[in-house]
């Protein structure tokens, strides 16, 4: 499923600190199925998170979010997280989220903009994240067009599928042209 970057996301904030790591986000060695993972994601930091997180909530974090291994954070989408906003994101976690079209945004200053439990508004088209409680906001980093396309497409595997189909169609039409010439 694609993610429409033009939509504005509003939701309740779950706030976390710096260097939230992938073993805690995705402890799949201990809990190998998605159903089990959903009951345990992030419990190392906040035991109530898996129990109380609701569809549409927003995850806010400090620096270096998703440091550690190349494990993806799909479980966060599965428990209902609508967007992840962080001071900075570890590069593999950022790549993982882009390639699976999980809305993730880097917004320096986000930690001091918002409190846990507050409402937050993420407006990608305008490039801002704002606190509706007091009207303050910080800028979020926009992605280049090529990355936006991956989000819109629903992730890199879907993007690859579409590119491959185009390549096949083109090869086929070239063969037909050749046949036409030779025939």
């Amino acid at each position, binding site marked *: 499923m694609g993610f429409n970057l033009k939509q504005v996301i509003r939701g309740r904030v779950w706030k976390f600190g710096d*260097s939230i790591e992938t073993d805690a986000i995705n402890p799949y*060695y201990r809990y190998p199925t998605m159903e089990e993972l959903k009951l345990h994601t992030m419990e190392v930091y906040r035991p109530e998170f898996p129990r109380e997180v609701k569809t549409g909530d927003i995850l806010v974090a400090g620096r*270096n979010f998703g*440091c550690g291994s*190349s494990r993806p954070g799909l479980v966060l989408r599965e428990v209902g997280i609508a967007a992840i906003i962080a001071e900075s994101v570890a590069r*593999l976690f950022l790549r993982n989220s882009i390639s699976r079209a999980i809305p993730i945004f880097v917004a320096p200053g986000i930690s001091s903009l918002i409190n846990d439990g507050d409402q937050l508004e993420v407006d990608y088209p305008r490039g801002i994240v704002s606190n509706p409680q007091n009207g303050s906001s910080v800028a979020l980093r926009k992605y280049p067009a090529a990355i936006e396309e991956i989000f819109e497409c629903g992730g890199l595997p879907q993007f*690859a599928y579409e590119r491959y189909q185009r390549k096949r169609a083109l090869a086929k039409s070239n063969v037909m042209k050749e046949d036409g010439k030779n025939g």
Partner: protein
Amino acid sequence: MAQTIAEKLLTRNNLKGEEVRAGDFLEARIDGAMCHYHASEPMHDMAIEAGFENGLPEVWDRDRIFVLLDHHQPTLSQKLADENALVRREVERLGIRCFHDSEPGIAHQMMLDYGLVRPGELVVGNDSHTLGYGAINAGATGITRADMLYVLLFGELWFQVPHSVKIHLNGTQPDYPIAKDIILQLAGLYGEDFAQGMSIEYAGSLVPQLSIDSRVCLSTHGVELGAKFAMFPADATTESFVKSRTGKPYEPLAADTGAEYAREIILDVDELPFVVAKPHQFGNIAPVDEVLGTRIHQAQIGSCANGHYEDIEIAARVLKKNKVAKGVRFIISPASQQVYLQCLKAGLIETLIEGGAQVITPGCGICQPRVGFLSDREVCITATTRNFRGRKGSQSAEIYLGGPLTVAAAAVAGEIVNPKEVLRGL
């Protein structure tokens, strides 16, 4: 314009053929792709999810894809055996020629052992520690499983050209490995994300003295500092390592004079204390003197960062004169069968076993909750890659990271000690 190593690498591999600078986005041509046990996802499950009826329809180059079933060797459950069986079927179907199947060991070490990666190449792997090949001047980095699907199909991938940080390591190599202490000290001094998304270039008077093993430790751990690449210059040590493993030609990368660095750091290793990362973060650094007397239950040496010959050799040197303390489990896992064999031929394994250590099958298990679990409130000191809470079982267990000498010294003392005490007796 003068270029850093990363700028030169990505300019060389830019599909558009244009010069790129730090900050630019590009589609790059991939020289080599390493897939480990998660290969079944991009080849099969994820491909089907994306719309391909029977899995990935083809691969871009059957000789540039390397599949190594590392994490699950030997398999510990039927579920994992089923996953490995699926990879086997997919490799056969897609005609991938380089497949290390029934060989335990860490994929990264095998890539180096068997000359599957060369200086100057852009190599990706679906594992965060792929950066390790930077030790031999390869532009290597971890990618995601979804990225890997794209690479397997097209041999291309998007990148942002990283800014670069130059780390000058100056001083003299002592007669024991210090790479782990160096990288931990850097994380402690500058923060565990100071190289976020960047390319590390190692330089300085220590570099020519560093073994490939030590370079691999430093490059592998680039990811623990957030880096995209962590590269060493190609020198005589690199050349002799690579040429004894592959006859294929290669073109090393070197930065231009005047290249721009976002940051330069100088570390004098002669002044370096022995350090550990305390639980539960890589950057939670303290000199060993601050944690002296911490009682330990388990000590470990292994992983892609520290399962090398020199890491095991220093442990054997310590155990030649000392025995593992009562109540301590000292577990050693060579990084690969080749490393294991080298240790065996040098007589190290005999010394380790006589000294009371356990030597286990090469692989990634020692660094994960796979082999050697910890019980509640147990303490482990380990020369492996990560010390996250719960990484070895119990959430209340504590994991300290240290160099192989620090670990071996703790194993014989039963508590964290300053390795200088042990060194005096060697």
